[in-house]
């Protein structure tokens, strides 16, 4: 050995699997690309524009705050970009362009940097940003939806299945099946007076039941699966989101417990409690519920957020079940057609408690 050689002395281990924060974050962004492409295909280039605007706004906001805090600017790690993108995924393609910008600033500023940045935020910043937008600009968040390329927003395209004669459809019923998201249709039909109303207008046939039934028809489920519906950018295709999720699971970036228990809980509960008054339920209803709304996005991309979810194995199971329970409660008895984001936010704040209550027993430790 050359005596000039300077040897590095550092604690073991001396090898690493080369995973970095940066690598993890950009891989999640990559996993969202299929969904972004599907959204752009179905809802036009504006979906892409809004998404990128949200992402860039988040990056700008994080850089500004880090400059103000006089700490190193770490926007290259991709976490702000990801937050901005996820926030924009909670906005529909017809929204004004300032909406994701404001949302991203709130998400990064109040949701993340206030607490000290990456790793320290108590709740999912993107979801906090969405909750802020929904509370502040409910009209912009929920009006002016864009219909998918070649489908009704509700995903119910085959109106002849519902009524042999379209005149049977009252304006109220027609509006319902042509201008809302699938979950909004399901929610509206849970209102028994509304159902009685459209049934009466249709001359006494069970129109509500037929519309409800059509939600679980193969054709509607296909629309949901491929994304041929109305909704937020990230509510697009279950297929595109599953593709990204499969990539993340394969790369070992997300773990299966939370998504499995979340989606599983929604599946089971919607099977048991999913019917509408007077018309019962369909065995296909759980599929309608897991493929619609933001469940796939939420379960695989938001409920798996590292910082805001439990780190114990049992804790993750509880978290997933809790999210599923709350989502179904909000969808069935709450005021919103969709409950994914509030469920996750609620479970986020439970996370420290869940972790402490589910600490594992060391290998070889016996019950006292």
């Amino acid at each position, binding site marked *: 050995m050359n005596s000039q050689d300077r*040897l590095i002395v550092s604690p073991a281990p*001396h090898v690493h699997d080369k995973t970095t924060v940066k*690598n993890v974050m950009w891989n999640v962004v990559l996993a969202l690309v299929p969904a972004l492409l599907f959204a752009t295909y179905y809802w036009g280039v504006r979906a892409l524009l809004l998404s990128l605007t949200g992402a860039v706004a988040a990056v700008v906001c994080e850089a500004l705050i880090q400059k103000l805090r006089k700490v190193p600017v770490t926007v290259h790690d991709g976490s702000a970009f990801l937050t901005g993108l996820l926030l924009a995924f909670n906005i529909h393609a017809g929204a004004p362009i300032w909406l994701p910008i404001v949302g991203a600033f709130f998400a990064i500023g109040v949701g993340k940097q206030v607490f000290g940045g990456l790793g320290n935020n108590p709740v999912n910043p993107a979801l906090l940003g969405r909750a802020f937008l929904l509370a502040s600009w409910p009209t912009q968040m929920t009006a002016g939806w864009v219909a998918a390329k070649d489908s009704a927003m509700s995903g119910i395209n085959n109106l002849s299945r519902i009524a042999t004669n379209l005149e049977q459809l009252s304006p109220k019923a027609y509006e319902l099946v042509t201008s809302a998201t699938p979950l909004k249709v399901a929610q509206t039909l849970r209102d028994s007076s509304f159902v009685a109303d459209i049934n009466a207008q249709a001359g006494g046939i069970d129109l509500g039941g037929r519309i409800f039934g059509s939600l679980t028809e193969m054709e509607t489920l296909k629309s949901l699966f491929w994304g041929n519906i109305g909704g937020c950018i990230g509510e697009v295709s279950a297929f595109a989101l599953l593709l990204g999720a499969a990539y993340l699971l394969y790369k070992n970036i997300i773990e299966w417990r939370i998504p499995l228990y979340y989606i599983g809980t929604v599946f089971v509960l919607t099977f048991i409690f999913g019917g509408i008054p007077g018309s019962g339920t369909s065995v296909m209803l759980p599929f309608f519920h897991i493929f619609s709304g933001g469940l796939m996005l939420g379960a695989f991309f938001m409920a798996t957020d590292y910082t805001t979810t439990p780190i114990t194995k049992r804790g993750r199971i509880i978290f997933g079940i809790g999210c599923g329970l709350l989502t179904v409660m909000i969808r069935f008895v709450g005021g919103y057609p969709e409950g994914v984001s509030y469920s996750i936010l609620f479970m986020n704040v439970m996370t420290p408690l869940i972790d402490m209550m589910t600490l594992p027993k060391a290998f070889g430790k016996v019950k006292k």
Partner: protein
Amino acid sequence: MQLKTFPGGIHPHDEKHYSKAAAISKFPTPNRVIIHLSQHIGAPSTPIVAVGDTVLKGQPIAEPSGFVSLTQHASISGKVSKIAKFMHPNGAMSMAIEITSDGLEQMVELSNDENFMELDAEILKERIAAAGICGMGGAGFPTHVKLSPPADKPIDVVVLNGVECEPYLTSDHRLMLERAEDILHGLKLIMKVVGAKKGMIGIEANKPDAILLMEKLCAKEKNLEVVALKMQYPQGAEKQLIFAATGRKVPAGGLPMAIGVVVQNVGTSVAIYEAARYRKPLIDRVISITGSIVKSPQNFLAPIGTLYSELVEASGGTTAAIGKAISGGPMMGFALPSLDAAMTKGSSGLVLFNQKEARSMAEHTCLRCARCVDICPMNLMPSIIANAVKYNDLDMAVKTGLNDCIKCGSCAFVCPAQIRLVQWIDTGKLRYAEAQRKK
């Protein structure tokens, strides 16, 4: 083949290709050796020679200073030239006896007991103690102590550790290929000493040749079993190996003897055989000199106390500047400040990294990604322990597993935030010990 393993763990690249084909070669007599007084767990040995004394190869030069201690022997013949502090393979400076070679290789007289298998257990234990044998897998617990379980803890299984799960290292692999019969002799001797009915050898699947050879030799032995293990780090850790091989769990805070098991490294097994049959003291061992920049990676049978610098030189030197010199494997080994350290009975390898391989990244805030929790072979909460230590909350650290940590380094290996989890946990262990002393 049904491969067994344990829950948790990681899969680092094994990097054994550098040295696994290099047959064990005898290292030429070094110019000097440095025999450390602390090569083992327990009290450092007490020198029984003085500077200027002439010693024979194999002559005792330090005696045990208590029950949990060890006899040390001269590994070459020559003159005691210094008794002072020298660099230990753990990087620290500690007391050692330096012997300068006379080049004569004069050895104490050995015997040859053909009937070594008939020897009484007590005599075997005496010979093992006299030979100064300690665990050669790394921890270095005095073997005669480990083989003296209390009467109320009967041992029924002896597990030989041929796992060698540390990346790069191949010394145990070569030993299993070249000294298989001696290893099995040693195993039978250990079984006899502790009165165990069953013997097992755990070998990972990346050493198929060793598995086949051992299986062939054990085919006719009813009470010996070769356990092929799925590759997974840290399978060579005692508790993990015992679980993989026998399905038994060592109680937290307890020893393997509590569940009737004793584990010994394959190298230790050979040393036990040699001590029983020839009364040969442990004065040499196989050590891998390996890494991408070692010109001709080796598995040397070298005298204890040989300087790492001499071992590297005998391996042809390096093809590039050394960035890091690791005594032991890269998962649990020590990074040395220089190659001036001398090998001990627990030195299984020296791994050299170039400057690029030696680079590590800066620590980031914990993301709470839970990778460390998912792979911890002891089912602990590494990130929480580290954080608790950082903020001096020892109660929380203990509650989340501080005292159960085996320091295998798996958590730090997978941490995307590059947090030095083992270092934090180590700090916590020290602080905890300090706090206990004050009580």
